[in-house]
Every structure is written in C-alpha cells, then in structure tokens.
C-alpha cells in the first residue's frame, strides 16, 4: 500500500455512533430533521462527485424525484409494502433513468451539462403534474408507514427505525463513494476536470468515466428520494422542481467538495437553518440562499469543510530540493503561465 496520508476512519465512525445514540436525548422533531438531512446528503453527495469532475448539474432533483416516485408508485400499483424493497426499486429507477439520459448528457460539459439536466428535470416535473391519473398531480402520492425487513414498527418507533435505516444506509453509501473517489475511475474524474486531452492520451475513456459517475450520482439521489418519501410519508412533483436541484447545488457548495463527509455537514446545517429561517420570512429565503452562495463563492470557495481542514492543517513539510533542470530565471512566472495554458477551456462544448 502506498504511503499516502489517509483520513482516519475513527472520527467518522465515532460520529456515526454518536448520531445513532442521539435520539436518546433529542426531541422527535429534531430526529426527523436529522433523518431528512442525512437522506438529502446522499443526493448532495452525487452532486459533489460530479463537481469534482468539473460537472455542475442543475437538474439532479430529477433522480431524487425518480426514486421517490418509483417507491410511491410501487406502493400504489404493485402493492409493495416492504421499505427495503421500495428502496431497492427506487435505486433501480434512479440507475435506469440516469443510465438512459447519461447516454446523451455525458457528452456534454459546462453550461450544456448544467442546463440539459435542468431541462430533463423540468420535463419530469411536467409529467408528474400532468399525468394526474397516474401520479396524483399536485396532490402527489401517499406512502403509508412501511414494514422494515418484515418488521412492522409501531408509529412511535417507526420514526426511530427510519432514522436508523437512513443513517446506516447513508453511512454505507458514503463509504462506497469514498472508495469510488480513491479508485482509478474516481481519480480519472478529477483528472478530467484538469485536462481531458491528457486523459484520452493515456488511453482512458473520458466519456465512460463521466457516464459511470453520472449513473452513480443518479443512484445516490434516487435512494435519497425514496428515504425522504418514506420519512415524510408523502411525495409531490416539487421533488423534481428546479429549486430542489438548486438546493442540492447550494448544499454541495455550502459543505464543500473536499470530502465525501462534507455533504452531511452542509445538509445538516442547511436543514436546521432553513427550519428556523424559513418560518421567519418565507419571501426572503431564496434571497438569503443567493447571498450566502455569493459569500461562499468569493470568501470560502472550499465550503464549510475547508474550515475543518484549516483547523487541523498539518505543519508544512520542508521545501523540496532545488530542481536540477529548472531555468535559472523566473521559474515561478513561467510555471504560472504554463498552468493557465494547460487548463481546459470551458467554453463551447
């Protein structure tokens, strides 16, 4: 194994245990908020993975809604009750949809990628609204309390069971995302952000890398959607609306893209702040989001996660030995110039 500074698994595991114990001291409402935050963090995680490849999507709610509605329709039409089965079906729906749309979307970058996703999510929104007879239109669909793994928890403990389920599922998927990030394909995705041309000249496939990442991100969002559906007990077309996608992007930037754990941090902060701020003034909520986003863009580009990194920054290692072929004069300036030139232009496609 290469000597590479790895994050210690102790901290995240400890945090997970704390979260699992939290309901002992927290009110039911807060446990519910945490469930929602953890579930949505999975959708945000998908957005973060794509962002690492330089891909910004304004339509990720498409897969969130796909997951939720797959679960909702499975209850209504297939009479599936089991919660775990519903989650499996949702994942299938999310992976299937993203695998299909990814065929088109994975060719694009930049504004095209962002807006094609937005367009498709708005199509789904329109479908959910319009085909009232099947989807329930604006009324949406109800999701009755599910049995989990065959057990039928009573109302009281259902909330707790769903919380635990969400936590464990999220932890597993976040670990999987961590593995993905450290894998060759995960690194290739980051390399694509820096220099697609080189990736192809190494013989690796840019398209396939983006496609795989896109499907993974879609799958994560669909699980999030189903978890939300089960926790809230009710789903509406708004799950696919642009503002939901915008929220995922917002939380992704708020948390930062520096770690697979950052979406959880961002998501929890977001849900709690919204819970209180939205009550105060519903008409200025989006404006607040916009202003906070501006502040992050200009003053905290690494998001909240970068604060934690600042706190535990390791002391800098010694300077490297002078490089033997470095030009005598102005190596720094020349280096900076090359850095600019080597960056992918992001216009056009």
């Amino acid at each position, binding site marked *: 194994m290469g000597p590479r500074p790895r994050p210690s698994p102790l901290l995240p595991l400890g945090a997970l245990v704390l979260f699992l114990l939290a309901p002992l001291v927290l009110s039911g409402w807060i446990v519910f908020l945490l469930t929602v935050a953890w579930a949505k963090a999975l959708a945000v995680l998908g957005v973060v993975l794509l*962002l690492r490849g*330089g*891909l*910004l999507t*304004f339509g990720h709610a498409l897969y969130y809604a796909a997951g939720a509605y797959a679960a909702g329709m499975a209850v209504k039409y297939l009479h599936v009750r089991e919660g775990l089965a519903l989650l499996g079906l949702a994942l299938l729906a999310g992976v299937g949809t993203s695998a299909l749309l990814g065929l*088109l979307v994975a*060719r*694009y*970058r*930049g*504004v*095209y990628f*962002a*807006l*094609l996703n*937005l*367009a*498709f999510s*708005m*199509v789904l929104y*329109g*479908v959910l609204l*319009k085909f009232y007879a099947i989807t329930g239109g604006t009324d949406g669909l109800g999701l009755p309390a599910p049995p989990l793994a065959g057990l039928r928890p009573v109302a009281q403990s259902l909330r707790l069971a769903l919380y635990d389920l969400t936590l464990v599922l999220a932890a597993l998927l976040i670990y999987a995302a961590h593995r993905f990030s450290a894998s060759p394909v995960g690194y290739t995705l980051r390399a694509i952000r820096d220099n697609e*041309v080189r990736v192809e000249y190494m013989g690796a496939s840019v398209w396939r890398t983006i496609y795989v990442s896109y499907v993974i991100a879609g799958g994560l969002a669909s699980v999030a959607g189903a978890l939300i559906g089960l926790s809230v007990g009710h789903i509406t077309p708004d799950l696919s609306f*642009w*503002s939901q996608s*915008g929220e995922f*992007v917002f939380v992704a*930037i708020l948390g930062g893209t520096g770690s697979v754990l950052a979406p959880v941090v961002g998501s929890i902060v977001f849900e709690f702040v919204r819970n209180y701020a939205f009550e105060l003034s519903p*008409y*200025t*909520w*989006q*404006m607040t*989001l*916009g*202003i906070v*986003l*501006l502040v992050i*863009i*200009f003053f905290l*580009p690494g998001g909240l996660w970068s604060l934690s990194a600042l706190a535990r920054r390791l002391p800098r290692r010694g300077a490297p030995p002078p490089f033997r072929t470095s030009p005598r004069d102005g190596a720094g300036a020349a280096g900076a110039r090359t850095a600019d030139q080597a960056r*992918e*232009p*992001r*216009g*056009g*496609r």
Partner: protein
Amino acid sequence: MRLLTVIALDGLAYASWLFLVSAGLTFTYGVLRVLNLAHGNLYALGAYLGAFLVLRYAATGSAVILGYGLLLLAALVVGIIAGPLIERVFLRRVYSREEEVQLLLTFSISLILEDVVKLTWGVTPMFAEMPYTYLGRVRLGGVNYAWYPFLLTGIALAMGGLLWLTVTRTRLGKVLISVITDREISSTLGINVPRVYTLAFTLGAVLAAIGGAFTAPMFSLVPGVGADVLVISFAVIAIGGLGSIGGAALGSIVVGLARSAAVYLAPELDLFAIYFIMALVLLFRPQGFFGEIEVRRI
C-alpha cells in the same frame, strides 16, 4: 385548412416569443462566454414592471395607446439598471475562474432576483391585458385571431434586424466580433474589453426584459416564471447553437411550429415537443445547428 391556419398563426406567435426571450441569452453567451442563469429573472422583472406601470397608468383613465411605450420603458429601465449592476459588481470578478463558478454566480443572482419580485409585487397574480385587448381581433383564413401576437412578431423581427445590423454594419459590431474572436488581442488593439462586456450584458438584459414586458399583456403573471423561461430559452439556443443569433431564430421557428402543432394534434405531448426536438438535434449535432466545436490547440 382552418386547423393548419391556427397552427401556423400560433406557431408564429410562439416562435416570436421564443426569439425575444432567447436572443438575449445567446447574445450574452456569445460575447461573454457566460450563460446568464438570471436571464429568466430579468424577463420576470421586465414583465412585472411593465404590467405594474400599465395598470397604474390605466387607472388614470388615459389613452391605452401610450401603454405600449410604458412596456418598452419598463424593459429599458430593468435592463439598464440591472445589466451594468450585475456585470460590473459580480460577473467581472469571476471571468478568470472556472465555468462552474460563473454558473454558480449567476445562479445566486437568479435566487436573489426571484425574491426581489416577490417582495416588490407580492404573490397574487397580476394581469395587464389592456394593450392586448386594445388591438382587437382580425379574421384570417376563417380564423378569428387577436392582433397582439403580430405585434410580438413585429418586435421580434425588429430586434433580430437591429441585432443583425449592429453586428454586421456598425463599428460596435466590428468591436464585438473582435472581442469574441480574441479577447487578448482586442485589448492590445486598444479596445476597452470590460466596457464591451458591460454593454453586451446590458443589451442581453434589455432583450430579456423586453421579452417579459411585451408578454405581460398576454398572460397573468405569477412568481416563478423565471426558471421556465430560462429552460425554454436554453432549449432554443442549444438547438440553434450557443452564441448564434441566427441559430436562436431558427431554433425559435422550429420549436414554435412544433409546439403549436403538438398543442392541436397531440395535446398530451405539448410539453415534450421542445425537449424532444432538442434531444434529437443534440443527438445528431451536439453543437446545435450553427454552433461550432472548438478544438483546443495542443
């Protein structure tokens, strides 16, 4: 026959509207290489201010004809205030950053403007139909049709013509083309590139607001139109090729006719007509009709 006439008339009206809303988006992108996600919100601002002025003015009981001037005034006010403000204060700081950051920035502005509309005009629907009804109706090929959509077509043609003349026949046009072709060289030639950017962004904002202001008499206004307008304009310019005015015109006509045909022939598909065409075009021509694929020099 009657059906065909209706489809053609509706298609023309819709195409005109599409061109008005998408021309500014594609123009701004063409010059600045930034897709303005707040485009739909500028549209909404134009629409709300236009409707607001017309309603105020109508309440005085004066001649309706001046209402058209008020719509134009509203658009100019919105574009000329919001355009330079957004470009100079915010956009300017991110030109050298990644495209994701530029998109995030215009997204923030879009969120802010979304609430500006709600705070200023509330959430109850607003409808200033006087300029629409005033023009009356006409019988065309056995169809009783309103005059107002033709005004929209006229404005779309005028805007398209003006843009075309500006780009091809004026000094400003030469400057624009020079800046689009090569930013650095232009500025060594003594062109004030930052000013050109402000100007181009403002022009795009005015176009968005004109689209909104002149649509206000046709539909009642509700908050949240911004996102729909943005998505539809993007579909149109993706079909035509990002940055191409001619592409926006072609895209508008194709989408306008297809949508209107769908409305009458297959109403349940009306929503998909636009996106279906977009997906089809992009599948076979990823850069759109008039778009170009840039090959990076290595």
